[in-house]
């Protein structure tokens, strides 16, 4: 693969990826870090175009123009609330490209009648398997998140068993292909591709729509591993390194999400959980004799405007209502009146890790106004009003108090400890985890019902009129 100069260019690109990722660890340097990683990618591309003997640039150009156009369009038009879908589909394309690299290598060997070293064969099969699963799995995840495919878990008898048998069959075929001459294995190789694509679909459909973000993070990790496998196929260190980086990143994010939801990865993948399943129980206390106090926008505005400190806890409902700009407006108004306003962002609020931070950043909320639960929880007792906007599970006190709850042990923002709590949502219904929330019935809590966009607009108006 190319001469020393080009190999060093690949090394440089890998180093730039690492440095870029390092700089993403702080909001100040993150944008530069992303640019550094992009430069790394450019260097790898240029090294390939110059360092390898190319028969024709025509088809490269065709693919690049199509891909750039599509990527540009999608990146510019996507709503921030739709980030999980966006990552899913990009992911799928990346996995697909890696799979095609492995496929092309095999087909070329078959065409020229070349022989296959076992190690090389294993790399190819791994690339095809992981890449194709990433492709089809990501597309199903995209469909579920976008509402194109049923959000509900699709289950049928013997589902896990049949998936497992399919996987075993693929491993057997893959092993045989790795040690046989490619010329005679093309048909079985097509089977590998088809079966891998099918497997991607089959393992994702039984997972509920609301669990999709975890699946997307896991598939993100797979897309990295697929790139690494392609690197083994081509003996290109830059691919191996970059793939490993992404593989590690995806695994870590998957782990963070599972911990934040207090569930195991196995439960997410095989639990057929979420996406409209019945309430999981927990909470306790007889339904009948509890009443939630209601408050109107005028009194809520009064409480907020005359508070010394207000902690705002946004959740998935804010994203659904697309009301982040209104919320920022409210926070600014309160700030002008001398109220200290802090946003408490739970790590799994919303539908992907860090989702709320992006939404609030979009609405121009400075990131030094955003706090992690551990930072604000100790201040709760001194907080006059905690304003919960479209969040539910992440402020559910039963996670802390009731060891039998389905979300027991999940860290929460302890709004129930504030002097007054106001919850803005449309009803008393449950959130993602399907767990009843005793917060709504506490004496120091009041509900402000309605779509968050409408109620926030009302609040802004009332505060202005004060």
């Amino acid at each position: 693969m190319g001469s020393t100069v080009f190999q060093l260019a690949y090394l440089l690109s890998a180093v730039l990826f690492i440095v870029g990722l390092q700089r993403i660890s702080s909001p100040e340097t993150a944008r530069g870090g992303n640019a550094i990683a992009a430069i790394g990618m450019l260097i790898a591309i240029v090294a390939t175009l110059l360092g390898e003997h190319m028969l024709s640039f025509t088809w490269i150009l065709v693919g690049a123009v199509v891909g750039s156009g599509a990527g540009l369009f999608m990146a510019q038009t996507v709503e921030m609330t739709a980030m999980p879908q966006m990552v899913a589909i990009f992911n799928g394309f990346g996995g697909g490209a890696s799979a095609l690299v492995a496929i092309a290598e095999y087909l070329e060997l078959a065409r020229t009648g070349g022989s296959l070293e076992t190690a090389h064969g294993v790399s190819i099969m791994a690339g095809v398997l992981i890449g194709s699963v990433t492709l089809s799995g990501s597309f199903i995840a995209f469909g579920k998140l976008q509402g194109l495919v049923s959000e509900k878990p699709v289950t049928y008898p013997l589902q896990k068993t049949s998936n497992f048998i399919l996987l075993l069959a693929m491993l057997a075929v893959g092993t045989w292909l790795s040690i046989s001459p490619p010329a005679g294995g093309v048909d079985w190789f097509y089977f590998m591709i088809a079966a891998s694509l099918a497997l991607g679909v089959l393992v994702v459909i039984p997972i509920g729509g609301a669990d999709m973000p975890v699946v997307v993070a896991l598939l993100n990790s797979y897309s990295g591993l697929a790139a690494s496998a392609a690197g083994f196929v081509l003996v290109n260190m830059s691919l191996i390194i970059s793939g490993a980086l992404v593989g590690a990143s995806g695994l870590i994010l998957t782990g963070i999400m599972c911990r934040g939801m207090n569930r195991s990865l196995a439960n997410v993948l095989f639990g057929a959980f979420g996406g409209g399943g019945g309430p999981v129980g927990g909470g306790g206390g007889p339904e009948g004799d509890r009443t939630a106090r209601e408050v109107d926008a005028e009194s809520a505005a009064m409480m907020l405007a005359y508070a010394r400190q207000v902690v705002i806890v946004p959740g998935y409902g804010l994203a659904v209502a697309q009301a982040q700009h209104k919320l920022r407006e409210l926070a600014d108004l309160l700030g002008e009146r001398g109220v200290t306003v802090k946003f408490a962002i739970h790590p799994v609020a919303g539908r992907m890790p860090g989702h709320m931070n992006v939404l609030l950043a979009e609405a121009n909320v400075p990131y030094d106004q955003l706090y992690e639960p551990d930072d604000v929880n100790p201040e709760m007792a001194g907080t006059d009003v905690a304003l919960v906007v479209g969040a539910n599970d992440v402020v559910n006190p039963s996670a802390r108090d009731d060891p039998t709850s389905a979300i027991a042990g999940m860290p929460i923002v302890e709004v129930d400890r504030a002097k007054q709590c106001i919850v803005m949502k449309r009803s008393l219904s449950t959130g993602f985890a399907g767990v009843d929330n005793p917060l709504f019935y506490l004496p120091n809590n009041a509900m402000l019902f309605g779509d968050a966009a409408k109620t926030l607009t009302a609040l802004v108006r009332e505060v202005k009129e004060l």
Partner: protein
Amino acid sequence: IGPLLVGVYVFVLAMFVGWQVITKVPPTLHTPLMSGSNAISGISIVGALLIAGQASDRIMTWVGVAAVAMATINVVGGFLVTDRMLKMFHRRRDTEPEA
């Protein structure tokens, strides 16, 4: 020491690097981290370019074009959308009057 073994060494070390680097990213930035690292996995564009540029028949040409297109979507889209997100992050002082 063969290419496969070398690859394994490099892979293991890169996994360590990735692990160390990523665990330092604060939750605030996890969404851009995810889309940014996603863009990096588009590095398979290197392989895609080889297929498209060295294709010797119709099938390979199409495989190559498809691979390049897919990888480019991932790379271009991924870096751009990450940039779009990250440029919205700002400190208290430099709040521009834009919504």
